[in-house]
């Protein structure tokens, strides 16, 4: 059973321009799909459409079916806000690129993390039990001193730590599908590799479906097994990471892989 099933997704602006046209893909429980493309290719819009979070004025057509743990598939396109709210968190959650804007600057991190935890475990979760749940959630994303971090505000911790908190919030509801939209692009290289490794184990442990969005093929290939290449809102090629990177067919994919290899080659010559 697929957790996410997208068929013929088209996203149109008010002026009638298609920003995403006829994109189809599906992700099963425990599998991972990378959405790759350059700026303006429609990667992030696709992710927002899956969450039912398209900006005002944009409309989606086609079908997006989300299946949360054992529930019947729910259709996202055309769903009411109320129905969507029931799905967000449980069926799917997102981690965005910039954790500084994803977190409320005026709220302690523990209080922010408590919201999805209480949504999941009920209003009865409070006091010492809530504190314990928050610290456990922070501990799961390998944050040291969870007690201190829970009391801190977002600006008091580093970018990598903030992204871990965002990840802990996304995982608090134990979603069937995790969408990661450029989750490591704002991070330093060394931190990036740590966060990617963490994401890898967390998703594997929970048998979650992962939709991983990035402009960077090398990053995508570190995390996912399958890739869908988007260009100007259209899917140009899809396949396993090994095929796309090793034997790209579409001219655009070839250009993308070729560029990445060309850049890498200078370093490859030195670092062996």
């Amino acid at each position, binding site marked *: 059973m697929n957790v996410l099933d997208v068929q013929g997704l088209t996203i149109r602006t008010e002026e009638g321009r298609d920003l995403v046209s006829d994109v189809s893909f599906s992700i099963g429980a425990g599998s991972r799909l990378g959405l790759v493309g350059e700026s303006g290719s429609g990667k992030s819009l696709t992710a927002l459409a899956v969450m039912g979070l398209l900006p005002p004025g944009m409309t989606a057509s086609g079908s997006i079916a989300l299946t949360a743990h054992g529930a019947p598939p729910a259709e996202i396109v055309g769903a009411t806000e109320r129905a969507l709210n029931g799905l967000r968190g449980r069926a799917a959650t997102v981690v965005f690129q910039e954790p500084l804007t994803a977190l409320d600057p005026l709220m302690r991190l523990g209080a922010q993390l408590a919201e999805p935890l209480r949504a999941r475990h009920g209003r009865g979760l409070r006091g010492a039990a809530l504190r314990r749940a928050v610290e456990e959630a922070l501990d799961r994303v390998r944050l040291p001193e969870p007690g201190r971090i829970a009391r801190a505000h977002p600006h008091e911790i580093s970018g990598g730590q903030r992204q871990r908190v965002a990840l802990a919030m996304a995982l608090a509801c134990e979603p069937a599908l995790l969408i990661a939209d450029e989750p490591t692009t704002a991070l330093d290289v060394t931190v990036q590799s740590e966060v990617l490794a963490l994401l890898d184990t967390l998703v594997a442990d929970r048998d979650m479906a992962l939709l991983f969005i990035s*402009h960077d093929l090398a990053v995508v290939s570190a995390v996912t097994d399958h890739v869908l290449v988007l260009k100007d809102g259209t899917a140009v090629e899809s396949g396993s990471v090994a095929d796309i990177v090793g034997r790209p067919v579409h001219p655009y994919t070839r250009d993308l892989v070729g560029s990445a290899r060309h*850049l890498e080659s200078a370093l490859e010559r030195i670092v062996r």
Partner: protein
Amino acid sequence: MNATAVLTAEDAGFAYRGAPAVLHGVSLDITAGRSVGLVGESGAGKTTLLRLLLGLTRPTSGRILFEGAELRPRDRELTRRFRRSVQSVFQDPYSSLDPRQRVGRIVSEPLCSLGLTAEAGAEGDGSGARGGRALGIRARGARRDDPRVGAALEAVGLPADAALRYPHEFSGGQRQRVAIARATVCDPRVLLADEPVSALDVTTRVRIVDLLLELKESRGLTIAMVSHDLSVVAALCEWTAVLEYGRVVEQGDTASVLGSPSHPYTRRLIASVPRLPAADGTAG
């Protein structure tokens, strides 16, 4: 220090008022023909060091030398020579170009503010005689038909009519080309660049790296570049300096620093670079 160095950081340090130093005793030479890559994490002091070298910030300890003489904003003659020799390109091509000026005007700006317009504009509205500061404000100046503007645009691969258009009419990669044209129009010896390609898409990034390589070869331009992308540094720079917590922990030939790093941080940095699986499908 080194006699051939264009720019030298001599035991340079920097601290914001009342705060601990963000840069400690950095010594670095920018020598003609030897491009330098500054690598390290965010907060390591890369950009601060670049700002010191650009003369935008004065070091709170140590000195910055230009052709062996200490950079002093009061020394107009030296500052003018410095501005002509050392130009800069920043990370974000969207915020570094004035949206209300045509590209021709943007690119001719260094010619105006350096007072290099006199020999081109024959009628000369006193541009040669006036001080540089007055020119910067007043000069309608090195008009867009200045042949050097056209040549600079052509050198970065933009069409001739680009001069008549506004920045918003260009893509990110093209805007970065405009920024590079502006930086190279007065034929500087050193280009200081802060993450010049990191805001660009991969395919565009390759083209801008190739453009910088070409400028290095054809004009003998020396690049000093902050970058978190080691492959870009490997492609463009002969010398690499690694910064951690405001100190240079390692510097040397790029081949030896990246090829056989001696500092643990450099090793960690290199190991963290995400790589594509091998081309022949033998990815492990």
